[in-house]
């Protein structure tokens, strides 16, 4: 059985099924799917023999047979309310089992120059733009999950903000997996195009809505930030602890643009985030924040590759992890500074707090520098709660669990404080409290 698993047959049934369902698609897209599928057949799933996958086993993915979800699975309103953020209901796109659910979604009147719709619709209505940008930053010939996504992509969000336009209200995306979604593979594809001086902000939530079973999310998001464009991006990952969640986030930045991203993981059984940044314009800026709080046997792997290609570019990556029980995390980041990228100011930090002796972290921030006038630092720490600090708090009357919670929240505060949207910040803080056995903040 197992030797079938790394090969493409595993997903070929899905591919045939999807091919029938997408027969009316434009020729270029069908070709992209075929190329993706062939490439995946050749590449197979990554193995731990590959340096980039050394500490992450895809066994749970190999061991499951996946199906394609049918559209229209019901999700109760309470579930939507539980995962959505107060004040961000204006533009709310809900995807259930990987497919856009129009009844549960609402898109209010958009400012001039802003186009927001599911990708499926954009393929029809905005074909030229989709064709021009989709896949520009990805490489399906080299990366198996990209190939798989090309072959099986079903839906996602499409956002285009014309030059000078501003999507003032944050856009909320809910990717939910319903009871019917158990055992399915959802290949999400998001495309975000910001023209010169455009601005937008996004909150993306991935969550289980009524299933504890294994399911597989393979998401790709491509971001194009033209000159002086600004984008804030939040991912809050709350999948079920059996879920397999693979994501790739590609950001292409032109001069003076700013990308601020936050990747926050509470859920998932096996999680891998790939973050690719190509900083291709003078003085553009990338602020990449991450927080993971894991328990049980959860495993989260953050892989990151940030290329400085022009001058005067600051990039700052701060990823912090809190690991309980037998959970494990991997961080591998590389900042690659091209010869032209003088005056680079790059900083990459990964800090981890282990709450037990059985939690594990492998961390490796790296620099590769070909310019000579740069300021680059990187660092990683793995530590435990300070017992003296804990004793201090307890000796004043704070119970042990509450004292631990205070210290853990203090550790996470570097990241939570950077969350600019208040309702998102509150939710993250409440999730931390919940994890730490504390009541939500009054």
């Amino acid at each position, binding site marked *: 059985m197992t030797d079938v698993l790394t090969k493409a047959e595993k997903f070929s049934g899905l591919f045939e099924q999807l091919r029938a369902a997408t027969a009316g698609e434009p020729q270029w897209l069908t070709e992209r799917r075929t190329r993706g599928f062939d490439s995946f057949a050749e590449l197979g799933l990554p193995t731990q023999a590959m340096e980039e996958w050394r500490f992450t086993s895809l066994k749970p993915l190999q061991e499951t047979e996946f199906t394609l979800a049918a559209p229209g699975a019901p999700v109760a309103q309470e579930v939507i309310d539980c995962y959505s953020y107060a004040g961000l209901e204006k533009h709310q796109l809900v995807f259930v089992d990987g497919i856009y659910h129009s009844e549960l979604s609402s898109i209010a009147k958009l400012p001039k120059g802003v186009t927001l719709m599911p990708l499926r619709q954009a393929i029809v209505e905005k074909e030229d733009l989709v064709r021009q940008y989709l896949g520009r930053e990805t490489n399906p010939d080299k990366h198996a999950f990209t190939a798989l996504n090309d072959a099986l992509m079903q839906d996602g969000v499409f956002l285009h903000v014309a030059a000078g336009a501003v999507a003032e209200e944050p856009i909320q995306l809910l990717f939910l997996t319903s009871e019917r979604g158990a055992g399915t593979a959802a290949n999400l594809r998001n495309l975000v195009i910001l023209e010169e001086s455009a601005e937008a902000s996004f909150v993306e939530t991935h969550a289980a809505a009524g299933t504890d079973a294994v399911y597989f999310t393979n998401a790709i998001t491509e971001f194009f930030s033209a000159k002086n464009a600004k984008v804030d991006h939040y991912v809050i990952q709350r999948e079920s602890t059996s879920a397999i969640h693979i994501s790739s986030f590609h950001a292409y930045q032109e001069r003076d643009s700013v990308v601020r991203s936050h990747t926050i993981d509470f859920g998932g059984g096996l999680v891998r985030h790939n973050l690719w940044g190509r900083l291709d314009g003078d003085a553009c800026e990338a602020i990449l924040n991450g927080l993971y709080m894991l328990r049980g046997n959860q495993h989260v792997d953050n892989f990151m590759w940030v290329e400085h290609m022009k001058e005067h570019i600051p990039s700052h990556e701060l990823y912090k992890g809190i690991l309980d029980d037998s959970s494990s995390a991997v961080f591998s980041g590389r900042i690659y500074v091209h010869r032209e990228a003088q005056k680079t100011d790059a900083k990459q930090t990964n800090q981890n707090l282990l709450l037990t002796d059985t939690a594990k972290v492998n961390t490796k921030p790296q620099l590769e520098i070909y310019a000579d006038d740069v300021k680059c630092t990187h660092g990683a720490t793995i530590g435990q709660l300070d*017992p003296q600090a804990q004793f201090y708090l307890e*000796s*004043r009357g704070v119970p042990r669990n509450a004292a631990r919670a205070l210290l853990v*929240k*203090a550790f996470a505060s570097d990241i939570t404080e950077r969350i600019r949207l208040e309702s998102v910040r509150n939710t993250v803080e409440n999730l931390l409290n919940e994890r730490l056995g504390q009541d939500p903040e009054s």
Partner: protein
Amino acid sequence: MLEIKGLKAQIEGNEILHGLNLTVNPGEVHAIMGPNGSGKSTLARVIAGSEDYEVTGGDILFEGESILELAPDERAQKGLFMAFQYPVEIPGVSNTYFLRQALNSIRKARGLEELTGKEFLAHAREKARLVELPDDLLKRSVNVGFSGGEKKRNEIFQMAVLEPKFSILDETDSGLDIDALRIVANGVNKLRGSDRSIVVVTHYQRLLQYIVPDVVHVLVDGRIAKTGGKELAEQLEEVGYSWVNGEMKTAQTANA
């Protein structure tokens, strides 16, 4: 109020307290003096419930009940307080936020209503004035970036907020200039009362001019070697600990 009987405590296998006896009655102020390394901080930390130490003999009774089995927070909830010789810096945890949680868990344990943020702040501001602690230190992370003197004042501020029945202050006077010493001593004196007991651990007679003790003990090598009135502190200041040591040796030899 507090009764310590034959207390033996060790750390990493080294016995530091070798059968220590000490009784502090309600309303009394005691001073403990003694050479470096004699076990004064050990005693304070064992009373507060530090798990770094193992108690291998004797007992500590608070209001007649043994507290050895209680966790540090439970001891605090019963009304015990220790001011640290070296207050710990805790980045990211704000002074008032944590102290409100501390006070509320103490109040809860005593069956009192918890204080709202507003009520707590009013209470905290009043106590901060008592030790002349600047308002901005209330909001800052616990002890982070505080000067040595500010840290010590913060300890007494916390004591004032929590209103413990029994406090042991471990060298709260060390590192204080004369003004700060007066402020801290004032704060402590305001907390004196017929139902409160305080033990001050100090190397300096100077503090005892401000906080006049009822009883002075000399702790040498893990035992109380001498107990007397406030004049004992003055004697010590003049001649040092050597004569106490000498007496101890003689006593031990006599016992043997």
